[in-house]
């Protein structure tokens, strides 16, 4: 019996070792705090380290989405030394629920070979092959956070300051008065649904807030601007606004305040705005129709004159002497005339060329002027 127990124990130890070594890597979670306040930033780090250096190991890791918390990956550092993958992840987490919450993870281990990696990077851009990997889903135990409740009526969590700006405090009836509130600081982004209380004796116009946020290991630095405008028929007061905030670092509550403000609204005589005359005379004469007509006439005249100018141009060309005729007239002897006729690639002057040739090279006598005249008549 003892022998059997010993064998079972040895087998269990051997099996545990196999199971552990089959993971091929180690992981190390770290939370900067275990018991944060609600919406207080928590930094989670994870280090994945390859232990089996005979394989090529890749990871896919992320936090699982949940209504209990918000998260943002703010940093990833990967050491891709040969067969020794080491990845360092940094997450910023905001718990959204008090009490105990569980942070769950998705981790995929991807094993591949050197050949596959080399192949995936070879070839031209039309010949890239997907990396072939053997994927194994790794179940990581969830991490617990014991989230503390906030002091009552707390609206903002973090270290914030509030500034506000009225463009004017005196206006005419129904004239909009621009009003801007800016909350900036570090902590959970200060997005408020209703900054001003409802049922006030003025009309409130508001745009979507302008949000700028930057996440880091120190938390989130935010700046939120609420652009608004106030309008009323009568003078009114903007009652003081108080926003309760809590700073988890100092564990102290504080208030952000907009003090009471009076707005003086002057009345406008509405009667002067109403037009009581039927078919009133125009304030000034409307010459636009005349100027349009004039511009059409100018355009028409320009087009007409352009067309005429083409016609004039043609007439001028027609009136110009034929340059060839002019050249013939300028010829003083048989030789120059023969040369001129030779330059024209036309059989039309074959007879004239023959006459001139006979005169030049065959001692025939010709009437040069007559030859020229006949040529000009031909043209």
């Amino acid at each position, binding site marked *: 019996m003892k022998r059997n127990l010993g064998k079972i124990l040895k087998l269990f130890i051997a099996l545990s070792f196999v199971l552990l070594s089959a993971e091929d890597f180690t992981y190390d979670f770290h939370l900067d705090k275990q018991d944060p306040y609600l919406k207080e930033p928590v930094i989670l780090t994870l280090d994945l380290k390859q232990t089996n250096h005979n394989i090529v190991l890749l990871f896919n890791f992320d936090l699982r989405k949940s209504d209990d918390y918000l998260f943002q990956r703010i940093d990833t550092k990967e050491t891709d030394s040969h067969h020794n993958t080491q990845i360092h992840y940094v997450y910023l987490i905001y718990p959204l629920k008090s009490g105990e919450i569980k942070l769950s993870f998705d981790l995929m281990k991807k094993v591949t070979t050197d050949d596959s990696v080399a192949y995936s990077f070879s070839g031209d851009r039309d010949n890239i092959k997907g990396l072939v990997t053997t994927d194994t889903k790794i179940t990581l135990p969830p991490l617990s956070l014991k989230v503390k409740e906030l002091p009552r009526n707390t609206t903002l969590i973090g270290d914030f300051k509030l500034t506000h700006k009225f463009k004017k405090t005196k206006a005419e009836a129904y004239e909009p008065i621009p009003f801007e509130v800016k909350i900036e600081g570090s902590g959970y982004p200060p997005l408020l649904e209703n900054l001003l209380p409802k049922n006030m004796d003025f009309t409130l116009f508001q745009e979507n807030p302008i949000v700028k946020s930057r996440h880091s290991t120190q938390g989130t630095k935010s700046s939120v601007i609420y652009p608004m405008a106030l309008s009323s028929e009568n003078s009114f007061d903007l009652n003081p606004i108080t926003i309760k905030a809590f700073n988890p670092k100092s564990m102290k509550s504080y208030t952000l305040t907009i003090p009471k403000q009076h707005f003086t609204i002057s009345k406008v005589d509405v009667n002067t705005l109403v037009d009581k005359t039927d078919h009133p005379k125009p304030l000034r004469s409307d010459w636009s129709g005349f100027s349009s007509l004039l511009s059409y006439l100018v355009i028409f005249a320009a087009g007409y004159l352009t067309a005429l100018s083409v016609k004039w141009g043609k007439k001028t060309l027609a009136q110009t002497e034929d340059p060839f005729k002019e050249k013939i007239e300028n010829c003083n002897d048989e*030789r120059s005339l023969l040369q*001129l006729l*030779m*330059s024209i*690639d036309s059989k039309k002057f074959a007879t004239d*060329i023959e006459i*001139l*040739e006979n005169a030049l090279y065959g001692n025939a006598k010709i009437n040069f002027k007559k030859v020229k005249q006949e040529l000009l008549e031909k043209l």
Partner: protein
Amino acid sequence: MNEKIIQLKRELSKAVIGQETMIEGLLIGLLSDGHILIEGVPGLAKTTTINALAKALGLDFKRIQFTPDLLPSDIIGAQIYNPQDHSFSIKKGPLFTNLLLADEINRAPAKVQSALLEVMQERQVTIADETFKIDSPFLVMATQNPIEQEGVYALPEAQLDRFMMKIVVKHNSEEEELEIMRKGASKSFEEVKKVLSIEELHTLQNELGSIHIDKELEHYIIQLISATRDPAKFGLENLSQNIMFGVSPRASIDLYKAAKAKAFLRGNTFVTPADIGYVVHDVFRHRIVLSYEARAKGINADEIISKIVETLPIP
């Protein structure tokens, strides 16, 4: 004019009405062993003319219609494998003829046009490793559509240079057109008869050698040639920017031969400057390579040639 030439022209006029320029060009090519390139729109009796010339001379005539998918072997011939005795035999192409009509030569790409280079210059064809001599006379009359038409390839300069003359064929006059219409409708074109044997043609070609050309005219030809290459030297500075390349040495040989043939056809025993003037446009127009500026300005080679002839003093 030589009696045989008159007979030949008379026979040709039975089938072709008008087109004296083309007929004259063909005769010049035939007598001086040159090839003719004819540019013109379809329907101007190009095929009819060369066919009539072949009949009048009793020569072999073949026609190749150049198309974009034509291959060099379709023209020159190819080696054919005979599976019965496992041997190769030569199948000669249509080049093996006396008068060859290369119809619409610029419809085929340059590689096919270039298949004619060897035969036009050397009068021989090489198929595989065997070279065949072409029987004399051998005249290539190529026709091309104006380059502005669609689906045409410009002929390479080396190919163009092998044509002795480029003749631009124009439409017939109204009187000629009327006669063509009447004869065509009534099919009353007379049959062309053989009026000249090959021996007689060779005799005419030999007679061409006895046509005298004065040294001054030889010098004039050289001046015309030089003026296309260096116009500024002859006081034609404004032409320099319009000419990219002047004419080649083949042009001087062809102008010399063509002027002699022209004089012969005119019935003279010596060449006059007018004979040179008659052929200079046809010999030069396809050999002058125009510059971009000239093409942009719409200047053509004929205008440049006219300017050169007008400027250089005749002897």
